[in-house]
């Protein structure tokens, strides 16, 4: 029987040479006349080991990484096809601690299956949730999701079931499911990974949402910076249609649901749900005032569920195993698991799905292994460009929505960026304003003007011009932006700015900046 070699087609693997590794294997297999097949899987999420090559053996899959094209001949010489030992060998993948200690619910198949093989998907619990949902009433499905405690994984943390109930109860001949796949936050790649590694789980989640609230049409608004994800999602939708998972009669139930993939056009603000809806309608991606809620007047003015990729991709496992199973993980009001994305200057970067409640310090030092440069950690930005910078003194903060909010931060889409002690926090605060200025949709004044004035004021501080007065001005400006902006772009930009100022005051002192300038 042909031996199966798994080489990811995830962007993180492609970016470090997966295609070259595939070509090298193909060449060696042909030259040596070996009986081996290459399967392109998703990523396991251990990105420091990419390109992670796995080989199927009777004992299970054996992992090798990080593999470069030049290593391939040596690996085959060492008996890779039998799981042979080699300096790059990590033994059985399933026994690898970093992976074994996770609780993979949403990402249970990611990295294991061929993302475009529907039979592979079904063999590991795929479509069980949808089949169950089809035997229930819409209200029962909504109740199950509500009971699971699932909250919006895009960042706002709004209870998914309550949003669904509003749409379910709204009347109207046409309702929509819109998936927000405009994952623009730096440090986040969970959406990309699931779309590239297990696209059917998102399709199934959207179909369940459609069945639950009575929507027959869904859209995935996918950012154009993710061409690989767009390609895979489009193929997966077509396969699902052919197999009757999507279409006029979902799995033969007589209930209709179909979906389309739509590409964004490079506007960060379109990750905000109302800007996203405008963009989907073909307008400028400008934020809408709420109310009306999108749940009542969303896409084209119709009742619309707008959910993040991970929220929707978590629904199948909730329907498969039941609300209680999901709810049993987590802490406080943060139930279930969260795919933490560990990024930046960190030894073990990647995706780690785990129940809520680990402390930030455990995530950075134990799971992440500290900085890649080996220098001390200075700051950790949690929640993307609109998230706060946390100092090491706050490493005891548990990873859940409320604990981070209590410390003037947010978990956002659960991406964390680690910085070592060479980071200049004044530069980071300036960048937060600069990014807001570049990406502001321009509708509200605090965000449109405030961001530019913020950059100018920080520049004055760095030049040593009336630093005390200008710091007070930044604090006042931040307050105006926080409470006066229409959406989270202007409203949350103060988080990185003020956390940098409050936790790292030395970086803003004129003496320090003058010294640095000399």
């Amino acid at each position, binding site marked *: 029987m042909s031996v199966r070699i798994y080489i990811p087609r995830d*962007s*993180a693997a*492609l*970016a*470090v040479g997966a295609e070259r590794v595939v070509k090298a294997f193909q060449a060696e297999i042909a030259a040596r006349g070996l009986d081996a097949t290459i399967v392109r899987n998703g990523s396991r999420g251990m*990105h*420091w080991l*990419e390109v992670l090559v796995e080989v199927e053996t009777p004992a299970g899959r054996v992992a090798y990484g990080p593999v470069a094209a030049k290593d391939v001949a040596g690996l085959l010489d060492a008996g890779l096809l039998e799981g042979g030992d080699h300096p790059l060998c990590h033994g059985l993948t399933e026994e690898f601690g970093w992976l074994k200690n996770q609780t993979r619910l949403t990402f249970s198949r990611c990295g294991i299956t061929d993302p475009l093989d529907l039979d592979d998907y079904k063999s590991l619990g795929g479509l069980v949730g949808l089949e169950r949902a089809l035997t229930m009433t819409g209200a029962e499905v909504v109740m199950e999701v509500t009971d699971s405690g699932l909250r919006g994984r895009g960042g706002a943390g709004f209870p998914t079931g309550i949003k669904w109930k509003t749409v379910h109860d709204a009347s109207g001949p046409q309702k929509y499911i819109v998936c927000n796949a405009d*994952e*623009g*936050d*730096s*440090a*986040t*790649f969970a959406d990309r990974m699931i779309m590239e590694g297990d696209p059917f789980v998102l399709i199934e989640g959207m179909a369940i949402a459609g069945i639950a609230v009575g929507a027959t049409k869904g859209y995935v608004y996918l950012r*154009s*910076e*993710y*061409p*690989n994800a767009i390609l895979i999602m489009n193929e997966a939708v077509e396969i699902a249609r052919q197999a009757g998972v999507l279409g006029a009669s979902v799995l033969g139930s007589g209930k209709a649901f179909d979906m*389309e993939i*739509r*590409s*964004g*056009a*490079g*506007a*960060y603000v379109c990750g905000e749900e109302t800007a996203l809806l405008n*963009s*989907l*309608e*073909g*307008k*400028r*991606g*400008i934020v809408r005032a709420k109310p009306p809620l999108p749940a009542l007047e969303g*896409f*084209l003015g119709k009742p619309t569920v707008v959910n993040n990729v991970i929220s929707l991709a978590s629904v199948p496992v909730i329907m498969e195993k039941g609300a209680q199973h999901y709810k049993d993980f987590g802490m406080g009001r943060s139930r279930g698991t969260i795919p933490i*994305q560990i*990024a*930046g*200057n*960190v030894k073990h*970067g*990647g*995706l780690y799905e785990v129940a809520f409640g680990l402390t930030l310090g455990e995530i950075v030092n134990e799971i992440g292994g500290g900085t*890649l440069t080996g220098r001390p950690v200075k700051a950790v*930005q949690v929640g*993307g*460009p609109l998230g706060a910078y946390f100092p090491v003194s706050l490493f005891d903060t548990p990873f859940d929505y409320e604990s981070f909010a209590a410390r003037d931060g947010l978990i956002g889409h659960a*991406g964390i*960026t680690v*910085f*070592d002690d060479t*980071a200049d926090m004044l530069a*980071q605060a300036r*960048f937060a304003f600069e*990014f807001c200025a*570049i*990406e502001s949709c321009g509708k509200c004044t605090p965000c449109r003007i405030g961001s530019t004035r913020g950059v100018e004021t920080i520049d004055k501080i760095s030049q040593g011009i009336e630093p005390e007065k200008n710091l007070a001005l930044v604090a006042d400006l931040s307050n105006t932006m926080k409470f006066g902006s229409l959406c989270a772009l202007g409203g949350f930009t103060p988080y990185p700015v003020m956390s940098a100022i409050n936790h790292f005051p030395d970086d803003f002192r004129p003496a320090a900046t003058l010294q640095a300038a000399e």
Partner: protein
Amino acid sequence: MNVHVKDDVSARTLEIVNELRSLEGPLLPILHAVQEDFGYVPEAALPLIARELNLSRAEVHGVVTFYHEFRNHPAGQHVVRICRAEACQSMGGREIADHACKVLDLDWHGTTPDGRVTLEPVYCLGLCSTAPSAQIDGELYGRLDRETLSALIKEVRQ
């Protein structure tokens, strides 16, 4: 010559509009298709799209100019996009970005005089765990350093 180009744009734009007009919210898919075809969104295409979708020219112009992705002139033969977001910054992304500007002797959004390379910033390619990263045409690159970037740029300049 110009007349022919304009006719080409009109004919092809009309084809694209007719192919996609039945979509809900067809404007972005149409603009993407036009850009895919011509490498940019020609000014001449806008009045036509506006007329066919029953929008004002101002509305279509507003949409095209709102999004970073749409160009109003052709890019160079190769597009080098350097990620400038936080995760890349934490791994020396600022130095990589400066290095790209220096090697190409370009500012952001600039194109080399020979028309070979356009340099653009990008705010996150989702490769934050293998930072710093870049995209050159369709290809993604992670764990970049100056030497690798120089070599890649040299390749596309030839």
